[in-house]
């Protein structure tokens, strides 16, 4: 039986649901010799501000049990150089490009979005309101419902591209943030970004990261991320791109069944840069085995009949 892996999300057509996660795949072009970028569902590039940024001094990452902390600090070349130097290459490689946009102010988000609206080859804007390790911008907006609405609305006003706010898991009720994003005009949401976390060298009593705190990613966060996708799916009618610790096809399936139309893979790409083929093969096998013709036949098919869900937050 032939199966169709393609998915449509927020007006984007993806060859398959597997997208390289922002910050874990450079600007995509770094991988073009190793991986045929056109075989990925999409490429979410490293977060971009208006201007170039140096990021945090090293040490920028530290491994933790089944995960890692990062505090890169959004080092980057700025949106204009990205448009001039990287975007044409990504287009030439046939990549579906999702640009992760950042700002220290709402005006900066809007300006970055406006510049990208004029550029050819931008598939969608992923609005990063969730970076946990920068002082201004990022999670500052994503931890407030009003901040979320303001950023999303400002970006919405200046672009025709799909707007996909990327939500932080560092809140009590992530579904209310998905709802705020929808109300402000988002086409989809992606979640989760990393969990604010910390590791200490007990011999020196110093934090292991130069930035003191950083974001936790990898398999350690997967069950929490799946739960958050599930909550958003239950509460809000908005397409979801799910992520957090996906290492295998089985992990990706959890997110899809919980309600994600597409998924992103970040940390796993560090461990296995050739993961993409394996995910595609694994998903094809799964769909065939379950007699499903398309991925959308699987999205949000979690069966919770006869199961009570008790929310413990109140």
């Amino acid at each position, binding site marked *: 039986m032939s199966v169709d892996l393609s998915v449509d999300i927020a007006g984007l057509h993806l060859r398959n649901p597997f997208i390289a996660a922002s*910050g*874990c*795949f*450079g600007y995509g072009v*770094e*991988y073009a*010799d*190793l991986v045929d970028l056109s075989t990925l569902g999409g490429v979410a590039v*490293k977060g971009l501000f208006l201007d170039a940024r*140096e*990021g945090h*001094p*090293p*040490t*920028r*990452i*530290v*491994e933790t*049990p*089944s*995960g*890692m902390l*990062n505090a*890169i600090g959004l*080092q980057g070349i700025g949106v204009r150089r990205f448009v001039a130097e990287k975007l044409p290459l990504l287009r030439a490689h046939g990549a579906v490009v999702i640009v992760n946009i950042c700002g220290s102010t709402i005006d900066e988000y809007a300006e970055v979005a406006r510049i990208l609206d004029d550029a050819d080859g931008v598939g969608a804007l992923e609005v990063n309101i969730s970076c946990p390790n920068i002082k201004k911008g990022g999670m500052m907006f994503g931890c407030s419902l009003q901040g979320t609405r303001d950023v999303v609305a400002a970006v919405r006003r200046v672009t025709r591209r799909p707007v996909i706010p990327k939500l932080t898991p560092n809140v009590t009720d992530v579904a209310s943030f998905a709802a705020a994003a929808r109300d402000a005009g988002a086409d989809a949401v992606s979640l989760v970004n990393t969990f604010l976390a910390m590791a200490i060298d007990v011999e020196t009593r110093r934090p292991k990261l*130069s930035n003191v705190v950083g974001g936790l990613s*990898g*398999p350690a966060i997967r069950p929490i991320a799946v739960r958050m996708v599930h909550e958003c799916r239950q509460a809000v009618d908005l397409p979801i791109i799910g992520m957090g610790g996906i*290492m295998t096809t089985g992990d990706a399936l959890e997110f899809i069944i919980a309600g994600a139309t597409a998924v992103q893979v970040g*940390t796993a*790409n*560090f*461990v*296995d*840069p*050739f993961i993409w083929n394996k995910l595609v093969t694994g998903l094809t096998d799964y769909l065939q085995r379950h007699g499903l013709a398309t991925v959308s036949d699987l999205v949000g098919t979690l069966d919770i009949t006869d199961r009570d869900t008790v929310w413990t937050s109140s």
Partner: protein
Amino acid sequence: MPLDVDAVVVSNTHLSNDYNVLVLAAPAVASQVQPGQFVMVKPGVGDDPLLRRPFSVFEVLRDDARVTGLSLLNKRVGVTTRMLFALTPGDRIRCLGPLGRPFSVTEPPERAWMVAGGVGLAPFATLAAALRERNVKTTLFYGGRSATDLFHLDEFRQRGVSLTLATDDGSRGVQGNVTVPLARAFCDADRATPIRVYACGPTAMMRAVTELAATHGRAIEVSLEQVMGCGLGGCYSCVIPVQRDSGPARLVRSCLDGPVFDGGTVVWEQLG
């Protein structure tokens, strides 16, 4: 073009309580290796430890002319290096490479001075072989804690490399840091003879060697070790502060722009 192979462990030779040489059957990777390049390895298939670790390629192994594999010089310090220490023949590990910018291999009449501290010996076996092919007169300045921490001396000698040794406890060679005999050699060297210095080891040692080389007007390349996430330019973890022209230092990815850098361009005081 880097490849990822599931490499069989051919042998694991324990050199001491901490050091071992691991031979991997990875000919497709090994045959592409240039001196100073590295591989990203992961012993075990589980999620803990999760990430790969960068290792300099120690030797490219040949059977007659045919490349059969490569070896890694490992020192047991953390989780992954303990696993690498404990591997037995027949085990498999993931090995991705070769990666990174290699040393620039000099030509006569320039001489080569390789300066190694501890496990920083690793990139110099392949460099010595390449220098030998070009008939470059080569010296290895090599420092360790004690005589039992100095390895492969005969192999270097057989490749025509002159050795100058130093140990912290004085059990072999000069007592003290390897920079002690190196400083003396710089003073004794004929000004008219061009020398290129290559250094790998603890950061403080490479910084001291770079300063000595600058004082004596000699070219220097250093191989830096930075915590790495992917080895492919994807994560921006392994950055090094570098100054190539006037203006502020730039943080560049050591997996792509390094691990070998012109020592004079590294902003050592920002390296931590």
